[in-house]
């Protein structure tokens, strides 16, 4: 039957002559495409930087009529090749979130607590900043500036120096803390105490022959998602991908070999791999060296004479074998890891065959556990034994791009600030049981999550608390402690885009810029063997009265403090000078721009010849949006024999300048910490919860996993992982996050499911879709069960991200009633630490859980 539109109209009007399917209401009065004549607005691509994860991807926004409509990677970026991962696209909905805070607001309900309505009302920026300045001045007047605390959430690596790096020093408080230790800091201990590099690694994925993805899922998260996605499929053509993960991750789903390890047993697997690689003679002769007579003496159970081996770039390989590896056979590891012995052996041989083109890509799953420092060392040391340090297809230290520091603030620090600013920090770093020896320096690492404990112990410690782009009540394990601690803070100022969980405890909320599209600053990072700096800028006029917290807000706040008699901060900022025009800032906007120009000037001012992209000036840099460094040179930090002195000169930043399988660097740091507390290193190890004593503490080694909650009461081991759509806990209020949640392997859209092996489901009488209550020694959440084969019996897995009880009307099930959509893993996970690094434990199955039908 053929019908013309006009006839159809007539017929349906007549008497429903056509039995139309569904609801054929006509669009007779709607504008037709023909009616809307040609002339769609042109658009332009404007560069900026995504900060949805730690990749900090240089991006471009497509702008039409002052609106952001599309996103892509910056086409000049060597880190992402012009592509974004799915997170990038979510920025549009995050920026245009109907629930964004559009004006400053203040609390009118003095009562604070989870589920207590703060009764926020709008205030002007002027009133808000006046109130904050008054509260700060009270501290100075009372000679207690240390009762000001600043905590940093997501930040700009350059302009952070104007808030995190400046305000506490000039004001006079030692209490400023970064979020870093709840992220992945313990990872850094692996390369740190072996190679002297306390940082995140890069990889030559374009050449890798064997990629070992371990405790992370580079296709979903972990610092270079677009680069990993771009190169993964080709590695499968070229060689082998191995995935070590207790759950079937995206990488595991695409790997040749999935090793679903028992949570927390990574150190056992690493030891067995090293054992096989050495016993079967597959170590790198070029990097590690060889037995003097060429005969392999590494035999299971046999101690080797150190003098028999001549090392090249490394130190202590025989000590490592003797102290740790000689008995760590695949059969031993199979019992610990619950992986088949033949698979361990097979994979070790594949790694050995890949040799120096085998990249062991270690993630937080290995390290962010209560004894994670040693596991990180054990897994990372595999790169050492394979010789894949800075080789074709191997593992690299980070690349950077030149950034200019801001002028020194020293002369603006007064006596009070000097005196109080050097007091003891409340996060407990450097305590006997918290060595926190990041960078080889005891007491130097931040212990973010311990701040809540300090606040609970000493409620008077902090009177005024400022925080930016943070949400510790949601993002920290033992989240409930933060609810209690925050309820007691007398005056809390939160600078954020959304009324988050933490904002519910705020006295003043200042609407922050949505950094990727509204903030002007310079961001740097690296991937794919290149470092870069990229601009982050307002690509369109922001819709609301938002300000950049590290620059604009600080300028205005400094002005208020000056008006109230404390001018030092303002005077410091006002001393800045535009590197091009020499003009000094006259307002907040100029201050932000001058700061960005100062930070980035080296790459565009032409004073020094740059090895990377040539850029003619600030205007060109702003238009292009990125400077890429030169390519990382292979073996850059390998040592050489000096032909004159005949001595080996190493370049790694360890005590021996070599790659340390026996960590003299660890020995020194731990020794210093013990000395400070007048005790032995063994005592420190004991009070900090590690198992090793004596010499074993200086080599990468196996420590058994710590677990909170006994097997009887809490029979399931809980695994937390990250969503490929998670923008650091901030994207859950976008419809697109919810709609495409299913792209996380095993997950469901618009839901939050705990994955349970069907064998366990049957035992418990639980089916897919059942509401279940998960309970740990710390807390309890209700969520939905999903029976799933991607996790072993006894282990359950749930993605981080859902469970918001605030933030917005999509993220929360009911914002007004503080009801969460799903459950927040951090309410289950126990507040514990890898004390060597000060990192918060969140992986390795350290939390036992029981499951009940809800």
């Amino acid at each position, binding site marked *: 039957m053929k*019908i*013309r539109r006009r006839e*159809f109209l007539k017929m349906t009007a007549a008497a429903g002559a*056509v039995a*139309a*399917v*569904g*609801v*054929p*209401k006509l669009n007779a009065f*709607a504008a*037709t*495409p023909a009616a*809307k004549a*040609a002339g*769609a607005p042109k658009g332009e691509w404007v560069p900026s930087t995504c900060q949805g994860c730690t990749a900090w991807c240089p991006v471009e926004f*497509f702008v*039409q009529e002052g*609106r*952001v*409509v*599309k*996103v*892509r*990677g910056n086409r000049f970026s060597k880190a992402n090749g012009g*592509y974004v*991962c*799915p997170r990038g*696209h979510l920025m*549009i*909905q995050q*920026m*245009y979130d*109907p*629930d964004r*805070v559009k004006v400053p607001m203040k609390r009118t309900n003095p009562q604070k607590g989870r589920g207590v309505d703060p009764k926020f009302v*709008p205030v002007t920026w002027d009133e808000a900043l006046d109130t904050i300045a008054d509260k700060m001045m009270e501290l100075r007047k009372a000679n207690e500036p240390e009762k000001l605390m600043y905590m940093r959430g997501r930040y700009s690596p350059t302009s952070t120096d104007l808030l995190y790096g400046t305000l506490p020093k000039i004001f006079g408080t030692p209490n400023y803390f970064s979020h870093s230790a709840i992220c992945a800091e313990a990872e850094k201990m692996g390369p740190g105490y072996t190679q002297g590099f306390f940082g995140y690694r890069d990889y030559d994925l374009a050449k890798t022959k064997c990629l070992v993805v371990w405790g992370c899922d580079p296709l*979903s998260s972990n610092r270079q*998602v677009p680069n990993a*996605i*771009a190169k*993964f*499929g080709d590695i*499968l053509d070229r060689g082998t*991908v191995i995935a070590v993960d207790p759950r079937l991750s*995206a990488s595991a*789903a*695409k790997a040749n070999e999935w090793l*679903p390890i028992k949570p927390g047993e990574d150190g056992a697997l690493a030891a067995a791999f090293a054992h096989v690689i050495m016993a079967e003679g597959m170590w790198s002769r070029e990097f590690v060296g060889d037995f003097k007579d060429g005969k392999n003496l590494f035999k299971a159970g046999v101690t080797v004479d150190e003098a028999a081996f001549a090392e090249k770039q490394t130190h202590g390989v025989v000590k490592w074998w003797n102290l740790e590896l000689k008995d760590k056979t695949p059969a031993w590891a199979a019992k610990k890891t619950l992986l088949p012995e033949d698979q361990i052996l*097979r994979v070790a041989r594949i790694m050995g065959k890949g040799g120096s083109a085998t990249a062991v890509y270690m993630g937080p799953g290995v390290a962010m556990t209560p004894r994670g420092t040693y596991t990180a060392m054990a897994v990372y040391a595999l790169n050492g034994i394979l010789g894949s340090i800075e080789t074709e297809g191997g593992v690299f230290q980070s690349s950077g791009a030149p950034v200019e520091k801001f002028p020194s603030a020293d002369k603006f620090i007064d006596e009070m600030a000097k005196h109080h600013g050097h007091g003891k920090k409340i996060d407990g770093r450097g305590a006997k049981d918290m060595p926190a020896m990041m960078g080889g320096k005891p007491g130097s690492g931040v212990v973010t999550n311990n701040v809540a404990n300090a606040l609970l112990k000493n409620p008077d410690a902090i009177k005024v608390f400022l925080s930016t782009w943070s949400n510790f009540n949601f993002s920290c394990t033992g989240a409930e402690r933060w609810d209690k601690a925050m309820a007691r803070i007398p005056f809390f100022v939160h600078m954020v885009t959304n*009324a988050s969980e933490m904002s519910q405890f705020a006295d003043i909320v200042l609407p922050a810029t949505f950094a990727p599209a509204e903030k002007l600053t310079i961001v740097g990072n690296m991937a794919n063997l290149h470092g870069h700096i990229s601009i982050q800028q307002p690509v369109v006029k922001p*819709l609301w009265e938002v300000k950049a917290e590290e620059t604009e807000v600080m300028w205005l706040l400094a002005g208020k403090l000056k008006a109230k008699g404390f001018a030092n901060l303002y005077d410091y900022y006002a001393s800045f000078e535009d590197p091009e025009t020499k003009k000094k800032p006259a307002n907040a906007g100029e201050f932000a721009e001058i700061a960005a120009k100062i930070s980035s000037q080296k790459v565009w001012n032409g004073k020094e010849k740059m090895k990377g992209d040539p850029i003619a000036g600030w205007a060109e840099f702003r238009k292009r949006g990125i400077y890429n460094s030169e390519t990382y040179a292979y073996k850059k930090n390998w040592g050489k024999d000096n032909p004159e002195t005949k001595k080996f000169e190493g370049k790694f930043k360890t005590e021996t300048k070599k790659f340390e399988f026996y960590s003299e660097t660890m020995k020194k740091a731990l020794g210093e910490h013990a000395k400070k507390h007048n005790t032995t290193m063994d005592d420190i190890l004991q009070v900090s919860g590690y198992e090793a004593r004596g010499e074993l503490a200086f080599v990468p080694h196996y420590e058994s996993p710590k677990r909170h909650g006994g097997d009887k009461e809490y029979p399931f081991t809980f695994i937390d992982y990250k969503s490929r*759509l998670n923008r650091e806990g901030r994207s859950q209020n976008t419809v697109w996050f919810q*709609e*495409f949640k299913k*792209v996380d392997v095993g997950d469901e859209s618009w839901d939050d499911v705990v994955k349970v092996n069907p064998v366990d489901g049957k035992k418990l009488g639980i089916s897919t879709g059942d509401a279940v209550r998960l309970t740990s020694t710390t807390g309890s959440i209700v969520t939905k069960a999903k029976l799933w*084969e*991607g996790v072993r*019996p006894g282990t359950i897995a749930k993605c981080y991200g859902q469970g918001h009880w605030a933030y917005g*009307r999509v993220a929360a099930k009911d914002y007004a009633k503080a009801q969460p959509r799903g459950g927040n893993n951090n309410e289950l996970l126990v507040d514990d630490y890898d004390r060597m690094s000060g990192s918060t434990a969140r992986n390795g199955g350290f939390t036992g859980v029981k499951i009940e039908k809800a």
Partner: protein
Amino acid sequence: MPKQYGMVIDLQKCVGCGACALACKTENNTQARANGQTYNWADFIYREEGSFPNVSFTAIPVLCNHCSDAPCVKACPVSPKAMFKTADGITMHNDARCIGCRRCQKACPYSASDVVKEKAAYSVISANESKEAPHAAYRDATEMIKGCTASGAEVAMVAGAIPPGRNQYDHPDYLSVRNKGIVEKCVFCEHRVKQGELPNCVVACPAKARIFGDINDATREPAQLLKKHKPMRLKEEKKTRPNVAYIRSFRPASVS
């Protein structure tokens, strides 16, 4: 051979990340799921097989197959047809001629009239509600915190479009946001293709897993890939001759 636009999706390269489907939403301003309609012109299906630890997982990106024998075209009752084949082989939809009868949706083997009721993982064709204008959330004037947070309607008003991130484009057959009471689906971004650009899902794929072009042109990559690999197409038994083909395997063979 006449031109036939098609897409080859390399499942070995695909990582199932979702960037294509999201990029489609930004390009075509499709609305949020409602009333049993997904409005996801690009979407995914998943296949999980085996039991622990021998589990196989496959993500398959789906979109309109632009079938050569398209049942949706056959089913369209208006004349000239609202759903029709272009000379380039695209299954095109003309908004103005559409009467919203949804026979195309019924006829399409890859679509569901109501994904909730039919428990369908996806639907190529979505139907716009007949009474309510699209993007209801951006017409909602309620505020979460009175006077402090915005509302959907305010965001749209201040930004100047519904949805606020609306990508405006011109095409003789369809609008950049489709009206109420009609159906909509993937049109291979013909508004882009006509300007010499590739569909947005193709340019946005960080794995470069989507290859678009004339599959009848033996000199071009799509045809060459189809020749080199043994392609798989969805529901080939329906004999609609789909022009979206899948090559290689999402999960590689185990080395054991």
